[in-house]
């Protein structure tokens, strides 16, 4: 546990002036007798982009749900903007592997759904203007009246991005958001995501199975061990921003990818 703390500290230059947004202190999770997470310590500062990578079933989604206030931790503290997380919070935007658009709502209705749920239908009506702007931002202009059944997988996932952004969240929690997409669509979405997070100075926490994706997007990549999940190392990615697709063939990029791969290999997880 002490080593764990030390390693996290290593990933963060001392005296960082940026405000900490998320603080996880010794967060653990047990499902019955099954230990899903061993103590996790993570601090995300304003504008940070962090990724978690680790073998299947190591507790990544569990960690994300705890951060989102969807599942209580077994022990430890989760603090967001100075307030302990004890349930879903408005500042959080979430996205999952499936777009999960509701097929009886139009794309536009799906996007304003979070507003409709929180503030009522009148507020949702007012938010439609913002929703149309978001649709344009992700290249879905003209599809506001389409039903989800008429969208392709990538288009649905872009609509899900709009739904996440409509409440103007400060923090984005992303659970393999693009892993159901083909590689071309995925690259495009990653560029998009980078643009969105940096434009809003949003703090983001991404779960992924793709090492290049993690390196491409992140300031810090947390490598997790197989179950029970434990953060083995926090790798700081100090490549310049904005990142471009061309950078992915550069040696520096490859070095990070290799480093993370060897960390995963060393644990014999892959």
């Amino acid at each position, binding site marked *: 546990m002490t080593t764990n703390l030390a390693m996290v500290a290593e990933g963060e230059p001392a005296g960082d002036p940026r405000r900490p947004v998320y603080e996880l202190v010794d967060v653990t999770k047990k499902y019955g007798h099954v230990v899903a997470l061993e103590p996790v310590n993570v601090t995300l500062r304003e504008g940070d982009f962090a990724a978690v990578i680790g073998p299947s079933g190591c507790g990544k989604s569990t960690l994300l*749900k705890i951060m989102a206030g969807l599942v209580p931790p077994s022990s430890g503290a989760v603090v967001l903007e100075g307030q302990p997380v004890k349930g879903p919070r408005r500042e959080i935007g979430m996205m999952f592997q*499936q777009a*999960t658009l509701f*097929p009886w709502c139009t794309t536009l209705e799906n996007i304003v759904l979070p507003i409709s*749920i929180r503030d009522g239908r009148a507020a949702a009506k007012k938010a439609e203007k913002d929703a149309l702007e978001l649709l344009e931002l992700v290249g879905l202009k003209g599809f506001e009246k389409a039903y*989800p*059944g008429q969208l392709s997988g990538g288009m649905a996932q872009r609509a899900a991005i709009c739904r996440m952004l409509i409440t103007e969240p400060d923090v984005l929690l992303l659970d393999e958001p693009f892993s159901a997409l083909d590689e071309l669509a995925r690259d495009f979405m990653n560029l998009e995501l980078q643009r969105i997070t940096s434009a809003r100075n949003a703090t983001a926490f991404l779960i992924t199975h793709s090492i290049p994706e993690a390196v491409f997007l992140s300031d810090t990549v947390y490598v997790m061990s197989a179950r029970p999940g434990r953060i083995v190392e926090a790798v700081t990615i100090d490549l310049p921003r904005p990142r471009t697709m061309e950078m992915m063939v550069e040696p520096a990029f490859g070095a990070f990818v290799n480093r993370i791969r060897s960390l995963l290999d060393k644990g014999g997880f892959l």
Partner: protein
Amino acid sequence: MTDQTLSEAPSVARKRYEDTVWTEEVAFIDRIPRGIAMVGLFVGFIVLWQLVYLSGLVSPLILPSPLETGADIVFVGKNLFSGGYMLTAFFVTTQEVLVGFVIAMAIGFSLGILVGETSFGERAVLPYLVAIDTMPKVAFAPLFLAWLGFGISSKVALAAFIATFPIVVSTAAGLHAADDNARMLFKAMGATRWQTLFRMKIPTGLPHIFTGLKIAAVGVMAGAITAEFLGGGKGFGELIRVAASQLQTPRVFSLIIYLSLLGFVLFWTVVLVERRLVFWHRSTISGVDGGR
């Protein structure tokens, strides 16, 4: 210039092939158009019926000829459309069926939501419902007659009783149909239990619920007629019973045919409402079932 060289291919002359336009073979039975198939089957049935009648194997008292039956259908039709006593009986049964269906929906949805949404319902109420559901519900008819008398209410009660269970079961199953992602999403949006129920779980479950409603629409007819058979009254079931006891077999047939119209209209009303409400279902790519 370049275009030409490209399209006219290299120096080697290209061999001309025949167009490979071909049609897939369809078996005869899959090729018959709907109208012809339906009329053909109907005519075949009538012919077979006539043959059995002519063969003398079955007593004409039990099996009338198609012609006799046809004549009686016209007779009953005239009585119905001229507002005769049969129309009155038809309205009585219609009333029983409709009131029974509405009551079944009210109770069915309420219990279905209790069982499908709350742990109390699932733990305490569901076992009893399952126990009752496994009983032959028609056996309760004498009880309803004893409690509610021989008027319309005992028929409504049995009709509703039979139709309630499929609605409960399908509603409860429908409420479980939403996947984890949809639930998580609603939770993350800070939705209340009611919001989650009415804006996510119930819409997701509508295809299930309508399956139950269709079964209920059939059951409510069976319930009303059974109760009329057993408990008299002024409905169509009573007309059928009387006709049968007098060995007026053609009348039994024609009454059944007009009765089936009622069932048909009820069933198709449910189907039409379903098509309006569940227009989105089977749109193969819907994120909700995660089946992308």
